């Protein structure tokens, strides 16, 4: 490990000042500050003031130099647009102001070692990223890449490097988000994302008054005042999920796409709506409060010395998640294995082959394993596979669903291992079975073509967008035939696989002659069907209890608009757990959706009788009260929900509507403003605030809200692009329909769905 001094060849500070005076600031002038700070103690106030003044002087000169030729396409006051990154103070921030990771590594060897293999340090340089962003640069211009690089390379954006013929030394590219990127961030502008950070001038120390001392500081100074080091680099914001929101939430602004606001991904919002945030009363299950950092920066014993370790453990700087491609490409074997272990930990998904249906018989045999049933040769069966997003604090897959690939592999094999049915296999060329049930999307452009290579600026809509939201479940139906001459039992297996990235994108990046990228099985479950009678079998470790299996089926059926079946499933839950208030709430929720309001009221009353303080039940009760024109009850119940869950988007939104309907405009405005503070993109807030502000005479604010509503609202013309895409891809059209059937049987043999589209019979006929 090099020391900061040795690791940072640079100029002396005096020389840098001379450069500034001469008006010929070197593009690497920044390290001068760090270098000087490293060579002189900062014990004395006078010295500290000098260092601060020197940094300001260097920065100004640097910024003036960059500004002279910078492309201010999106306005002089918005140099980072279409991204949102910003820095404290005036002008561009010289890249050399960021102490190198090697400087930090002197005391934080574990952190450095982990970070070097992690996604954050490789956020910019990987071929997977460059392939896409290079297209943007080469087709629209490098200034548009500020949108991507506000997160992937903020040092370049804030340093003014993303402009034509830039003369910024880009040697920092290889470090992506370096230590002092995250540890210098002072604030997030909002939870809008797109790199909405406010970067401070990097400092590893503050003085006694809390003033930040820019640049590197001798290690012995830090060791003398570790509290002041911590104050400089460990702001409370680093522990908060809003910190992650700055980059793990994104939209495509009109400056990028010359169209309108298009939502990209909302991982932060998904977390906020999950049980782990404890901010949403409407989740189906509950859990302990867990932040993004709680899952992705778990503490582990440290292998290398690190002053940041506590009690022998260190908060992971690997940020383990789903990306196996980057460690695979770079040969970071430890990161790769830990990523695979993370995905396979068994905590995140539950796969349940919940039930069977026989052709010509509407009865559901469920839950499999708990009830006896028989299977005979020659029968056509439908397996109902429930995939539960059990403990992911966001959707599967939360980001970049057009490139990352999770899917369900379903197989039926005879006793000899021969496939009777196989969906979700990989072709010999590595591509995925095109009609597999995948948790991916298909963005389309203005020509109704698939948006390949993550050219997000061309996206107009998505043809389909399959996922499993946090805490929810999906039901996937597979139909297959048992041959008349079957010998022995058949084994049905469902598994969820993950590959980073889809094969066609890997082919685009490398050409077709690349090694196969890892496919990781996240979760799976098999069941053996004997010919003849099948008796109940013991549950396996990891299997959900039967009441939860029914609950998950009910959730999945609700999301497929199968209301009667959903009520049936939730009724099984309350049969097994009559004390479970949420079971009745769930029935009520389905019935309300089904417009069976009287029955819904009866069931929500049962829920409230069991748990009078249930915010979830109160919320749905309030909506029913609105339906039955009981405004006092409606408002009092929603107020109680807001009291219990002050950061609930839904409760604020509905209470705002309730107040509005009762002409309580100030109160209504307050609620929508609270909602907007939680989610700055909420359409209901924009819409209602535009009306409320106008009513209050606040014309300027009303116009602003109206403009944001118009920009962010759904474009009613955009589905045309998706429909045309489906016309060209009829085999995929069912993926846009919640209820659909996967089968390898000819069309006439396939069972007809109760609602929704015709099954996709024959689509997989070649198998």
């Amino acid at each position: 490990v090099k020391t900061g001094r040795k690791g940072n060849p640079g100029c002396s500070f005096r020389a840098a000042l001379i450069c500034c005076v001469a008006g010929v600031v070197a593009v690497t002038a920044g390290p001068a500050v760090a270098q000087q700070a490293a060579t002189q103690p900062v014990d004395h106030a006078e010295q500290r003031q000098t260092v601060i003044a020197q940094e300001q002087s260097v920065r100004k000169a640097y910024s003036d130099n960059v500004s002279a030729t910078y492309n201010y396409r999106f306005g002089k006051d918005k140099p980072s647009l279409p991204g949102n990154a910003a820095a404290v103070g005036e002008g561009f921030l010289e890249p050399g102001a960021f102490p190198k990771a090697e400087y930090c590594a002197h005391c934080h060897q574990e952190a450095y070692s982990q970070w070097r293999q992690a996604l954050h340090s490789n956020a910019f340089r990987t071929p997977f990223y460059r392939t896409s962003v290079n297209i943007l640069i080469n087709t629209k211009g490098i200034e548009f890449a500020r949108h991507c690089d506000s997160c992937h390379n903020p040092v370049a954006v804030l340093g003014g490097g993303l402009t034509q013929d830039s003369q910024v030394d880009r040697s920092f590219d290889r470090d992506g988000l370096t230590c002092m990127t995250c540890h210098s961030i002072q604030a997030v502008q909002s939870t809008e994302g797109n790199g909405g950070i406010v970067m401070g001038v990097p400092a590893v120390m503050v003085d006694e008054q809390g003033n930040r001392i820019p640049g590197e500081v001798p290690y012995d100074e830090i060791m003398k005042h570790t509290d002041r080091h911590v104050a400089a680099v460990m702001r409370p914001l680093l522990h908060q999920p809003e910190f992650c929101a700055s980059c793990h939430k994104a939209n495509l602004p009109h400056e990028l796409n010359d169209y309108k606001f298009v939502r990209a991904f909302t991982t932060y919002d998904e977390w906020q709506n999950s049980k782990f945030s404890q901010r949403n009363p409407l989740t189906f299950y509950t859990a302990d409060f867990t932040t993004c950092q709680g899952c992705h920066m778990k503490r582990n014993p440290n292998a290398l010395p690190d002053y940041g370790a506590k009690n022998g453990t260190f908060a992971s700087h690997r940020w383990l998640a789903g990306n196996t491609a980057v460690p695979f490409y770079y040969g970071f074997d430890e990161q790769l294995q830990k990523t695979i272990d993370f995905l396979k930990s068994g905590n995140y998904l539950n796969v349940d082959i919940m039930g069977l249906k026989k052709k010509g018989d509407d009865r559901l045999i469920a839950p499999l394993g708990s009830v006896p049933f028989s299977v005979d040769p020659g029968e056509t069966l439908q397996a109902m596979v429930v995939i539960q997003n059990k403990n992911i604090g966001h959707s599967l897959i939360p980001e970049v669903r057009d490139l990352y690939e999770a899917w369900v592999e379903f197989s039926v094999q005879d006793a000899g291992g021969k496939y009777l049915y196989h969906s979700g296999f990989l072709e010999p060329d590595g591509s995925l079975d095109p009609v597999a049930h995948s948790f991916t999307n298909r963005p389309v452009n203005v020509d109704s073509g698939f948006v390949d290579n993550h050219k997000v600026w061309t996206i107009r809509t998505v043809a389909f967008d399959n996922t499993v939201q946090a805490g929810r479940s999906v039901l996937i139906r597979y139909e297959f035939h048992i041959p008349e001459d079957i010998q022995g039992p058949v084994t049905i297996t469902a598994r969820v696989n993950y590959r980073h990235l889809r094969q066609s994108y890997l082919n685009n990046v490398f050409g077709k002659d690349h090694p196969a990228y890892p496919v990781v099985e996240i979760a799976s479950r098999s069941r053996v069907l004997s010919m003849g009678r099948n008796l109940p079998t013991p549950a396996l470790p990891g299997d959900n209890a039967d009441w939860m299996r029914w609950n998950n089926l009910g959730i999945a059926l609700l999301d497929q608009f199968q209301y009667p079946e959903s009520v049936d499933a939730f009724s099984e839950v309350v049969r097994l757990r009559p004390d479970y208030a949420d079971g009745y709430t769930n029935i009520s929720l389905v019935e309300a959706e089904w417009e069976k309001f009287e029955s819904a009221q009866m069931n929500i009353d049962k829920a409230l009788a069991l748990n009078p303080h249930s915010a979830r039940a109160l919320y749905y009760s309030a909506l029913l009260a609105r339906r039955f024109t009981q405004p006092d009850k409606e408002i009092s119940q929603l107020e109680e929900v807001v009291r219990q869950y002050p950061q609930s988007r839904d409760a604020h939104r509905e209470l705002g509507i309730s107040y509005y309907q009762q002409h309580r405009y100030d109160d209504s405005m307050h609620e929508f403003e609270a909602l907007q503070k939680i989610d700055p993109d909420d359409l209901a807030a924009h819409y209602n605030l535009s009306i409320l502000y106008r009513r209050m005479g606040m014309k300027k604010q009303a116009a602003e809200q109206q403009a944001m509503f118009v920009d962010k609202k759904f474009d009613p013309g955009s589905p045309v692009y998706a429909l045309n895409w489906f016309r060209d891809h009829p085999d995929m059209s069912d993926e846009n329909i919640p209820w659909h059937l996967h089968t390898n049987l000819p069309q006439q043999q396939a069972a007809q769905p109760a609602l929704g589209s015709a099954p996709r019979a024959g689509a997989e006929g070649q198998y």
Partner: protein
Amino acid sequence: LIRRSAVHWLWIAAAGATTAASGHAQAHCPWLNVATASGMLNGPAILDVQKPSPDETVCAFRYTVQGTVYSLQIDVRLHQDISRGLGSESSVCTSPGAALRAIGNEANICAEDSKSLHSDVVIGRVRDSIFRVSVSTSARNDPAMPRDALEQKAKDTAEQVAGALF
């Protein structure tokens, strides 16, 4: 401690700004800017861009100080026959090549030494583009650019070039 005198740094900075300007006016290398090349060469580089054929572009950065010439050359060409192209490029090596991981689709590094020039060369490809990056000093046993520095700079530059080619 790697430190340079104030005068030396001033010279670098002034010359860097000057050459950056002249580089800007005269030539543009698609894969590496003058500032980054100057950082690699430890001094203000002059850029010359040549296009020997429609499928080939050569960027030559050069920095001369006290009689020593430091150069960084990037040669990118499209090839129909990748293996033949890589083999042809590798013929200039004066040391056995070593495979590099995570630079382009594939890459190798080797030395290319002559009486007047001591270079480390990375030869690799991105899809069907073959690139050749060499970092050189004219001085034998140059203390300002020792062998390991040449090697590291060649690798770092090659990564930048490959990144731009993806």
